[in-house]
């Protein structure tokens, strides 16, 4: 994976290049550190509050994090291929012996790594809250902690694959980003809600429903767990199909008559 030249090149582009960006990054890291410190030492949250309040705090943190990703990811990944086309670098990239799969996977991995890196800053708070929940009660299964992160990661994978698909399909970044947002929110969020009257199980394909009503839910019935797992599997499968189509279409030479 690390030998993928596209991934390495994309990661190079994330590097901080000058003092200004280093300063901004420093400020952000400091702010997050202070936030972690506050929550670490915050007596009310970690030591004084009841279990249910601590759990609610965790739900709010995870909910905000998830909503932020839903809003950010299509915008950051929607130009992943179309930008190459716009800045006229795609042709030279396609001319290299790199396979279409290497190019698409390299691009996707760089976005996934960036996404994973964005999950990290709030991870210590979440671990501490869960450590406290587990220490004082058996009501909260620790597996839910992993499940929440896995759900976020798989939904993130789906959003990125959807964005890569549109980025490859449409020549303009703006159109690709708009198509990604429209499909994600219009079809998978609002559309599944509207159609759930006709096909109730469609509601499981709504990422918000998956995350807020099931992944973050305090009590999950075995039937819900099965539907939830199936829905995650379907989204992951759909994401993989979208990636396969993107790979197949990337280097298709223009056929004449």
């Amino acid at each position, binding site marked *: 994976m690390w030998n993928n030249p*596209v991934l390495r090149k994309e990661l190079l582009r994330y590097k901080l290049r000058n003092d200004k960006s280093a300063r901004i990054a420093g400020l952000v890291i400091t702010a997050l550190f202070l936030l972690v410190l506050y929550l670490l030492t915050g007596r009310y949250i970690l030591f004084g509050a009841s279990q249910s309040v601590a759990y609610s705090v965790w739900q709010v943190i995870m909910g905000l994090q998830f909503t932020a990703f839903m809003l950010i990811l299509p915008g950051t990944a929607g130009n992943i291929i179309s930008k190459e086309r716009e800045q006229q670098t795609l042709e030279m990239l396609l001319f290299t012996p790199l396979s279409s799969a290497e190019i698409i996977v390299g691009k996707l991995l760089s976005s996934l790594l960036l996404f994973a890196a964005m999950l990290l800053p709030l991870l210590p708070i979440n671990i501490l809250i869960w450590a406290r929940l587990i220490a004082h009660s058996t009501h909260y299964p620790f597996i839910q902690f992993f499940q929440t992160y896995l759900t976020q990661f798989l939904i993130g994978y789906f959003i990125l694959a959807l964005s890569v698909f549109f980025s490859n399909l449409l020549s303009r970044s703006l159109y690709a980003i708009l198509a990604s947002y429209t499909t994600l929110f219009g079809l998978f969020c609002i559309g599944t809600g509207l159609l759930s009257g006709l096909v109730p199980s469609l509601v499981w394909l709504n990422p918000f429903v998956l995350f807020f009503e099931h992944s973050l839910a305090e009590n999950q019935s075995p039937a819900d767990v099965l539907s939830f797992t199936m829905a995650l599997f379907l989204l992951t499968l759909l994401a993989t199909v979208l990636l396969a189509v993107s790979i197949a279409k990337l280097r298709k030479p223009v056929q004449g008559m």
Partner: protein
Amino acid sequence: MAMVELNNLCKVYKTGSDTLTALDNLNLQLEKGDIFGFIGPNGAGKTTTIKIIATLLLPSAGTVRVNGVDALKEPGRARGFIGYMPDFFGVYDDIKVWEYLDFFAAAYKIPKDRRPGIISDVLELTDLSVKKDAYVESLSRGMKQRLCLAKTLVHDPPVMLLDEPASGLDPRARIEIRELLKELQAMGKTILISSHILPEMEEFCNKIGIIERGKMIVEGDVKTLAQNVRGYQSITLTVKANAEQALHMLQQMPELVQTPSICAENHKIAEGSLQMPRGCTLQFQYIGPPEEEYAVLQALVQAGIQVRSFFTPETDLEDLFMRVTKGQVA
């Protein structure tokens, strides 16, 4: 074995009910070391041809072989033999020059331990060594053009396809690119280059092809083409003395020579803008077979005329281009 071989190449686009023939039975054969200047008006089919050889476009009919490999059946293998520089290209502005080249070297599966040496070599060849650690965005347009050329060289391809490599550059950058191409020529690369800067093409191309409306109108070495198109080849000679006798002799060879005349002393040849050696200069149109032009010189020398120079001024490629093309596009 030909390094590049195109046989009956056709490309037809269908737009609604209309069809557009971009390439019409194009044939071309380039040997090792050939520098082929591909000339034609805008829309003639130069870029289409180059993209097909580069395996980025499929032809409607015909075959393409690069270094013996069928580029249509094995595009990946054929690309390994080609260095391709498109007419319009972008660069990754937000990485350093050496990182940019390292990326392409890695893309060409060059082992990591060999890459620094190769990058150093191509940077030196393209005169960009001092910019190794600079960000690509800080380079001038000419430097970016050379960087793109450096990128095409990282895998040491025997065939280079350069689509308008000097377009939009200032005169200095154009000269730098020209010098670089001469170095590549000396390295034995087979180069197919399209350009609109015809005098420069004439300087280093051993073959040219003029394409119009998807058809190769003429192809071959510049001087032979000029003679074939014009029906004669201009020759200038300088004699130490006896210019009248030389003129008389030339007039006696109507099967080889026409319109001989004496020019002024130290005459500046219009076509080549060359300062002639001291003496008397004569000009004539040679109409015999190209390989026998020195028979005229031999005859003059045998008659005791002291010839100081005998040469063909640079052919005016622009004149040739204007003669054979009609300004039509596909």
